[in-house]
């Protein structure tokens, strides 16, 4: 089905509800629909045309058309189409009908819309806060344009007693709190397990403890060319995918074509990143199962790859190579043999590890049949990456929406039908080998030539848009960019893969034992972010003084003021 046929079919079904259709680049469509019909259109896309929900982007467009745009982004994977359903709601007491009851994967996206844009989603079963802190005042929505980046809401009432409305524990269960800091979760996130003995009956989740307001920074502080470097810092493990994804989306919005060689270099770095990330994950998974020998050995194997990346880019991680229009560093042909020898050494050692893992009966006992994510659930909750592929969902952005050099050198999509933790392990182990194969092919095919586009216009028109997905080691990342004035985007929407996968966690750990919760959570390779809380101890007097939330907030605000030089 082409985009034209799809639009015709929707026009036939919904008539005048389809207000306008834009298709600036082939296979990327944005249709505007009336607020009344948004649920019906979304439902039809999801049910009748097999579209997969990606994310919702809310845009504060009050200065242009006195309203908020709500863009639901869908993907038709087989047809390689991005389909955006836009509806504009009036700015006075904005609210929109929630699509979550029909499209379950949208649950978090719509809660986020309520939090950050203040557009109420009517009909949400769970409308609790997702991102804003518990003591954040009502009615302050940070992504609105009238809030400046760095504005602070007034401090709360000072009692520090604001609490999250946790789900009540079911009858006959006790509550085990995992996090915000927990040995196996090196990043802040909180999981409340309602357990009966060791069996998990239900759970509740609270995260986003360290929301960094990167999207806000993107549309109010940074310029187009600065964003790739901030985007790369979204993640400390797979940052390059974010800068690649942003650059590809921006190039599309601005009508720039990156040279072939630059796109091959992007793919090459992305595959190197995938290998190191999967090796890192395998080690962590071993550690979670108390198998530290695996952790030490995989990280030892991984080290030469980090050195190689340092040789190519100047950094072990956070390569800083992407820029709109190409890459900033070329890779010398003299390095090709070294790249090959490093990855082929890994391939050889990895094959041995793969065999050892396959034959380990205790590992199998821990992983097989644990953390089940049935195919239907994976589809309904739009799980991505190895989490989705382990449940037989053939979703891989490299094949579904080829970017960088994957149109010329395709990557094989690896799936596994078992839907358990074991399947997710096997998918990752095989993907590592597949990435080595890609690098071998890619280096052979890599053309010579420039690495930067030269025909870049001086000014950027407002109102253009681009959308791109990039397959991160954990799943696909999505960047959606709407250009604005002032040399910066009007809206830059990012969705990291863990955002989609975490929503599947409650169904994966239900009825499992506590012993299996860490590895099940680990099996999706979650990526949160890092922060710390402080206790001050006066060593001389031995007196401990615990800072309250309020005092911490006051102190950190004072420190930020100092840094800003205000």
């Amino acid at each position, binding site marked *: 089905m082409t985009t034209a046929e799809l639009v015709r079919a929707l026009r036939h079904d919904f008539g005048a509800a389809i207000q306008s259709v834009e298709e600036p680049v082939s296979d990327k469509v944005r249709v505007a629909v009336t607020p009344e019909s948004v649920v019906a259109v979304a439902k039809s896309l999801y049910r009748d045309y097999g579209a997969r929900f990606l994310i919702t982007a809310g845009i504060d467009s009050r200065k242009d058309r006195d309203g908020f745009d709500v863009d639901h982004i869908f993907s038709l994977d087989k047809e390689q189409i991005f389909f955006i359903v836009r509806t504009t709601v009036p700015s006075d007491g904005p609210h929109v009908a929630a699509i979550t009851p029909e499209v379950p994967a949208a649950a978090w996206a719509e809660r986020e819309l309520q939090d950050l844009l203040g557009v109420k989603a009517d009909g949400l079963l769970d409308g609790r806060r997702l991102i804003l802190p518990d003591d954040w005042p009502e009615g302050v929505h940070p992504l609105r344009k009238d809030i400046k980046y760095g504005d602070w809401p007034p401090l709360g009432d000072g009692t520090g007693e604001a609490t999250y409305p946790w789900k009540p524990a079911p009858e006959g269960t006790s509550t*085990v709190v995992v996090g915000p800091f927990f040995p196996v979760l090196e990043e802040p996130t909180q999981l409340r397990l309602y357990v009966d003995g060791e069996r998990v009956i239900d759970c509740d989740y609270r995260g986003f403890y360290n929301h960094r307001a990167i999207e806000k920074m993107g549309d109010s502080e940074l310029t187009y060319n600065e964003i790739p470097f901030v985007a790369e810092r979204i993640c400390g493990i797979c940052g390059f995918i974010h800068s690649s994804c942003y650059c590809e989306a921006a190039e599309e919005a601005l009508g720039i074509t990156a040279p072939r060689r630059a796109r091959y270099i992007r793919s090459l770095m992305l595959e190197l990143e995938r290998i190191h990330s999967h090796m890192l994950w395998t080690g962590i998974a071993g550690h979670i199962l*108390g*198998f530290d020998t*695996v952790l030490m*050995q995989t990280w030892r194997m991984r080290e030469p790859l980090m050195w190689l990346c340092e040789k190519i880019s100047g950094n072990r991680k956070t390569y800083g190579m992407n820029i709109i229009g190409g890459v900033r560093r070329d890779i010398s042909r003299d390095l090709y043999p070294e790249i090959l020898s490093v990855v082929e050494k890994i391939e050889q050692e990895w094959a041995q590890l793969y065999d050892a893992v396959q034959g380990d009966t205790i590992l199998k006992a821990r992983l097989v049949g644990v953390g089940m994510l049935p195919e239907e659930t994976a589809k309904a909750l739009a799980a991505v990456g190895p989490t989705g592929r382990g449940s037989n969902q053939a979703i891989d952005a490299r094949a579904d929406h080829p970017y960088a050099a994957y149109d010329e050198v395709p990557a094989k999509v690896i799936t596994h039908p078992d839907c358990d933790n074991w399947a997710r392990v096997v998918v990752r182990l095989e993907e590592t080998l597949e990435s080595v194969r890609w690098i071998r092919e890619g280096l052979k095919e890599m053309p010579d030539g420039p690495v930067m586009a030269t025909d870049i216009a001086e000014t950027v028109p407002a109102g253009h848009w681009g959308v791109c997905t990039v397959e991160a080691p954990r799943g696909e990342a999505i960047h959606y960019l709407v250009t604005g004035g002032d040399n910066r985007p009007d809206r830059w929407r990012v969705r990291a893969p863990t955002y989609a996968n975490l929503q599947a966690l409650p169904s994966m750990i239900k009825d499992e034992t506590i012993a299996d*919760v860490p590895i099940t959570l680990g099996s999706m390779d979650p990526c949160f972010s890092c922060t710390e809380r402080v206790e001050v101890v006066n060593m001389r007097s031995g007196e401990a003084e615990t800072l309250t939330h309020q005092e911490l907030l006051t102190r950190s605000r004072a420190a930020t003021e100092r840094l800003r030089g205000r």
Partner: protein
Amino acid sequence: MVTRIIHIVLSPLIALVVAVFLLGLSRIVIARIHRRYGPPIYQPIIDIIRLMNQQSISHGTLFELGVVLALAGSIVTVLFIPLGGTNAPPGSYPLAHGLLCPLSSSGGLLVVIYLMLFGPVSIALGAGASENPNASIGVSRKMLLALAYEVPFLLVILAIMSHYGTISIAEIVSRQQDSAWGVFSVPLSAVAAFLILPAMLGIRPFDLVGAPQEIASGPLAEYGGRYLALLTIQNGIQVFVVIALFVNLFLGGGVNVITFLLKVFAVFLAAELVSAVLPRVRIENALRFCWTWPTGLALAQMIITVVSR
């Protein structure tokens, strides 16, 4: 009498020194398998000194009592276990000089079986008082694990008692020194005991009681400072006791303290090597494992022993 008093002091002292040494050795062995350097062998001593000086938060009398009882229980157990030497008449072993076992004449194996449960129960008591959900899950796992290995362990003990016709460990040791070691005369029991050794030591694949990644160190979750230091020592002594018992029952003890300790190190190394290449299992897997292979082997040996008598 004086010798006896010296022995009563000497026995736990040896146990303490060796226990701390074993903890350090364990870290080095595991580091070598990981291809790391690992900490110096005296690292546990540094840790214990540091913990002793740290702030210790208590959750009440029961919480503290648990630590004291566990440590006391482990130390008392040592007194019942021969740590090398022999009862044989002077002259038959030139380097031997009497049995180092202050309480060899009272109770023997039966007392040791009871005393070995003292540690887990005391820790359960203390950790329970902290009311930390992770601790209570850890305690329930500890009790289940004890249940898992006690079944084959008791069968092993029964086979040995019926083979040697005595409950005195000293007697069993000297019988082995006269004829064949237990590992040859009751081989299936020895295999069964080696299989449950990791569970009794609380090391991988059966380190699920304190699994840090799952339940934040379980029973130890609330223990810090000097309580944790004492429990570290207790754990070390418990490890020593279990291995010393294994050496006495299956490897003929030692004709003097040196050969005895060499055997202890050998068994400990073997157990650590197995442990380093295995992941952690779930409690149900641990129960299933302990009640199949080790129980089956121990039962078979017991039947063979009883029938052949």
